[in-house]
């Protein structure tokens, strides 16, 4: 740092006068004597090496070396500390090179009344008007970067007396600053990331401050504070008119993963195993197998629904989530397995005994739709995956909510259709394998209902599926109950509609109608709700 270079720009008399003012202000006791306006010894021009008499004064001054007069000239002032180096009487280092006119008074603080508050405390040299200055007490531009040629470059330690140039050499042109004519441009280049990213001048200000830019630094750029510097930088950032190039890359669709695919296979496999067990065993053992199989399937379904695209973890569930929907789902499945036979038996005066777990008993078990539905967990998971991933991709790509809705609706329908197609195939295969009637109508409608309910549940809409599932289960129960109620005396009329239905289209028509109505309702609902962008938010915030 060659603050000496600054000195010779200064008028010696003005300097001395200013210093005397400063000294008198804070510490009149000794300042006046040492640095009267008439003392040429303090003027840099005269502070030669042969002035030991002034040494104490000079070194003291060094401590709060700040010459207001110098700064008022408009140039950064490393003022009197420089008077010291030439003094043999005082150690060069002790003559305040450390402070060398560096004004601790926060010249850039917006409130002058506060900034120099320090000055009254102990540093008499502080200029009270420091905060009015354009330039702060130190100017690295002059000091660190481009030392003035000539005397100014003399290192302090050498005590070069030449530093105290003749007063005539005052008006040197200011030393060129690094960064050329446009220091702000250099600063912008250094912080170009920040500038390009910033959405607001205050963001640049915050970023600059985090990089150590202070108001005093800002003063180097001819700005009052960091805020106005940031405003200039923000205003000068080149912004292309059309930055709306599709820089957002559509994310790669996640592939179906083995773990949840295997889990989705679980219910089907367990159901098949249970059915095989039922087929092979008799009597008490069969009962045990049935119970164990039911438990295993229940756990398998639960496992399949806790991982992968069918899991409801995407949205935090509402506290008042109707837990009934799970019960009703099981009820609907149970009806699919046993209900048709019960209805048929009821219409014909039965049933005469409990189901024995075989498809050929007096109350037969409809194994084919059960197995097909259990196996359809895999296409259901795939369909949900398709919907989720497709919606995510379209979410990133679309520019508006309407556009998004229009893009997602066919996706939803195609996922739904995919599932129905798979389920049809499964029903056919299972029926062929087990040698039973497929029962397409009731199987497909129930599958559709459950799939849509799951879709909605996964995306956070739990209310509508719960209502519809409950209604469907209640309708099925009511249909069966009316048949039994028709046996009561005088209530024969109650059984008429269901009996007519069973007589015309068979017992499968009741669940088919009920589930079909439910599925249709949910499909309409899903077409409205699942096409909303807010349904596809991932709340991935940390807990």
């Amino acid at each position, binding site marked *: *740092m060659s603050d000496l270079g600054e000195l010779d720009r200064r008028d010696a008399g003005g300097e001395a006068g200013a210093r005397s003012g400063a000294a008198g202000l804070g*510490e009149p*006791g000794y300042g006046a004597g040492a640095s009267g306006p008439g003392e040429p010894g303090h003027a840099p021009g005269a502070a030669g090496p042969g002035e030991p008499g002034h040494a104490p004064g000079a070194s003291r001054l060094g401590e709060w070396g700040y010459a207001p007069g110098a700064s008022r000239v408009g140039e950064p002032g490393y003022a009197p500390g420089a008077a010291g180096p030439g003094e043999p009487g005082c150690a060069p*280092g*002790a*003559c*305040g*090179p*450390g*402070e060398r006119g*560096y004004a*601790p*008074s926060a010249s850039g*603080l917006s*409130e002058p*009344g506060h*900034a120099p*508050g*320090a*000055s*009254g*405390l*102990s540093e*008499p040299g*502080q200029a009270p008007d420091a905060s009015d200055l354009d330039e702060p007490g*130190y100017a*690295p531009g002059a000091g660190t970067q481009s030392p003035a040629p000539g005397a100014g470059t003399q290192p302090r330690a050498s005590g070069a007396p030449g530093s105290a140039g003749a007063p005539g050499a005052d008006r040197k042109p200011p030393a060129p600053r690094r960064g050329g004519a446009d220091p702000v441009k250099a600063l912008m280049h250094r912080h170009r990331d920040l500038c390009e*990213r*910033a*959405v*607001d*001048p*205050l963001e640049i200000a*915050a970023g600059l*401050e985090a*990089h*150590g830019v*202070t108001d*005093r630094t800002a003063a180097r750029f001819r700005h009052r504070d960091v*805020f106005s510097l940031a405003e200039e930088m923000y205003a000068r950032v080149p*912004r292309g008119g059309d930055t*709306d190039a599709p820089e957002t890359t559509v994310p790669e669709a996640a592939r179906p993963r083995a773990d949840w695919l295997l889990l989705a296979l679980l219910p089907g496999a367990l159901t098949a195993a249970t059915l095989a067990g039922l087929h092979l065993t008799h009597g008490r053992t069969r009962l045990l197998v049935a119970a164990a199989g039911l438990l295993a399937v229940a756990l398998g379904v639960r496992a399949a629904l806790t991982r992968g695209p069918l899991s409801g973890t995407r949205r*935090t*569930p*509402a*506290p008042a989530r109707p837990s009934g929907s799970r019960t009703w789902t099981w009820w609907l499945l149970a009806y699919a397995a046993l209900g048709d036979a019960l209805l048929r038996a009821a219409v014909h005066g039965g049933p005469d005994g409990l189901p024995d777990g075989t498809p050929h008993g007096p109350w037969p078990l409809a194994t084919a739709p059960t197995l097909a539905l259990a196996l359809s967990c895999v296409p259901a998971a795939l369909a949900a995956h398709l919907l989720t991933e497709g919606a995510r991709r379209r*979410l*990133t790509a*679309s520019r*508006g*909510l309407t*556009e998004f809705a229009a893009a997602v609706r066919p996706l939803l329908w195609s996922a739904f259709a995919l599932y129905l197609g798979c389920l049809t195939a499964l029903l056919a295969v299972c029926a062929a394998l087990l040698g039973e009637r497929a029962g397409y109508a009731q199987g497909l409608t129930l599958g559709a209902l459950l799939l849509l309910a799951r879709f909605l549940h996964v995306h956070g809409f739990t209310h509508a599926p719960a209502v519809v599932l409950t209604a469907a289960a209640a309708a099925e129960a009511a249909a069966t109950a009316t048949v039994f109620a028709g046996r009561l005396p005088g209530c024969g009329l109650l059984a008429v509609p269901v009996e007519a239905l069973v007589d015309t289209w068979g017992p499968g028509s009741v669940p088919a109608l009920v589930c079909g109505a439910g599925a249709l309702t949910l499909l309409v609902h899903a077409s409205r709700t699942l096409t909303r*962008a*807010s349904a*596809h*938010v991932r*709340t991935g*915030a*940390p*807990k």
Partner: protein
Amino acid sequence: MRIGLLTEGGYPYVSGDAGLWCDRLVRGLGQHEFDIYALSRSEQQEDEGWVPLPPQVSRVRTAPLWPAEDDGAVLGRRARRRFAECYGELALALCAGGPEGAEGVHAAEADRFSNALYGLAELARDEGGLVGALRSEGAVRALERACHAPGALRTARDARVPDLLTVATHLESALRPLSLDWYEEDGLGAVDVCHAASGGTAALPGLLAGHFFGVPLVVTEYGVRLRTHYLTSGAGTAATAAPAVRALLAAFQSRLAAEVYRRAACITPGNAHARRWQERCGADRAKLRTVYPGMDATRFAEVGESPECGDPDTLVWVGRVEPAKDLVSLLHAFAEVRREEPKTRLRIVGTATGAEGEAYLGHCRALAAQLFPDEADGLHAMGDNPVSFEEIGGPELPTLADAYASGAVTVLSSVVEGFPVGLAEAMLCGRATVSTDVGAVVEVIGGTGLVVPPRNPRALAEACVALLRDPERRARLGAAARARALELFTVEQNVAAFHGIYLEVVSRCPVNRVVLDDTGEPLPFGVPAEAHVPGRWAAPGAPLVSGGDPAWTPGPPVRAMPAGEAAR
């Protein structure tokens, strides 16, 4: 007086941000009653529990800010329409222009924002919660409409659907305080003053309490929330967010900050730097009182008052080791110091936290080993490096005060600093200091130590040498520093300042409550008229911070005192 202390991720929780400060405040003002309304930032924080609370805390109510369960409030048709209106206004206020512009436009935007905010608050109070509505499609649609409205921000116009969703999610969590059940007659309506321990979301309940019940609000910001928002939104994963998201969220934070500053009865920044930001964000100067953070001075009393002044040849640096502290510059400076004063030693006391800090510490150790070879007294003695890296708690430096006591000069070489706690501690220890001009250093040191430009090892070295060679000056500066620190940075001054501010605020804006009699009928003349006379609440001797002068305007020049006297 009953004070509602509003914190966010703060006080009663063990891992709170400003926990220590709030704890001292609450404990220091035993004559008042405190209700604490805390927003917790994470589930983990909630699990860690609370700090022990003093008896003056009469109640604590908490609410989570992290993604919580839906409150299940389903809006009816009319409420939905009201919501859409208010939220649409809010979105328009966020998207409109920038914070710049003509003064009138600015004021109109601020009004629009506050009207929308209070509209939403009233709706939430009527309906019992807005969480579901704020997450709903209606909110996203309102945002989309606002982004495409004429006169919207340029960046907002580029918003895509995912950006809108992100903004809606963030707004929902920022507006979570609207849905709380704190705004009851026996909740925030019952306090006399709301004191928000930080700006932003924590001050939002205070705003609403002011809106519903006229409770005055005091806002304390040791770090300006808006600035923190900018810094966090520009770093890490948040920096990859779309410009539209960052623009809208920044607009929200800045509008909220402006609204908080506008409604607050008193704003207490922790230093002049925070103060400048607050003024920039629209805080009225008349409301600003700088209240410096308080530090426990008793820990340093022994060191600060002892006459001996540490090893005269030792420089001490104390702090947390991280790149912002610029230890490299310090080491280079020390190399220069050694050239002048070969016997000098440097003690770097501090620990590194995090991987970055560890790496930096390792780097500094390597640099020190390179710059300074080990030295020994003679041919037969074992050598030692003049730079030592130490930690507090070892046998040599059992306490923090010992660390400061071990050297004659304390050095601070940071390039970035907020409120330099270490510097204030060194001042309390009566040490002469050399520090870089960053953050609030100059206003803390106030001329009782040397200040050099940051990133200037040579200036730092010269200042250190100057002090090392001049024991008298060291003593003088140290004594002055201790006197200044005792005046400004003690817990007592902090607590007293807030005490005064509470009394002043209450005397200026008393809450007018209708007093009910036993049958529930309003009791006429239940509140004596004197209750409204300003000044009655303020005890004559209350240490009020006078309005005009900043709190830290110093008294007589400390430097003029002899060193011994000042130390006493």
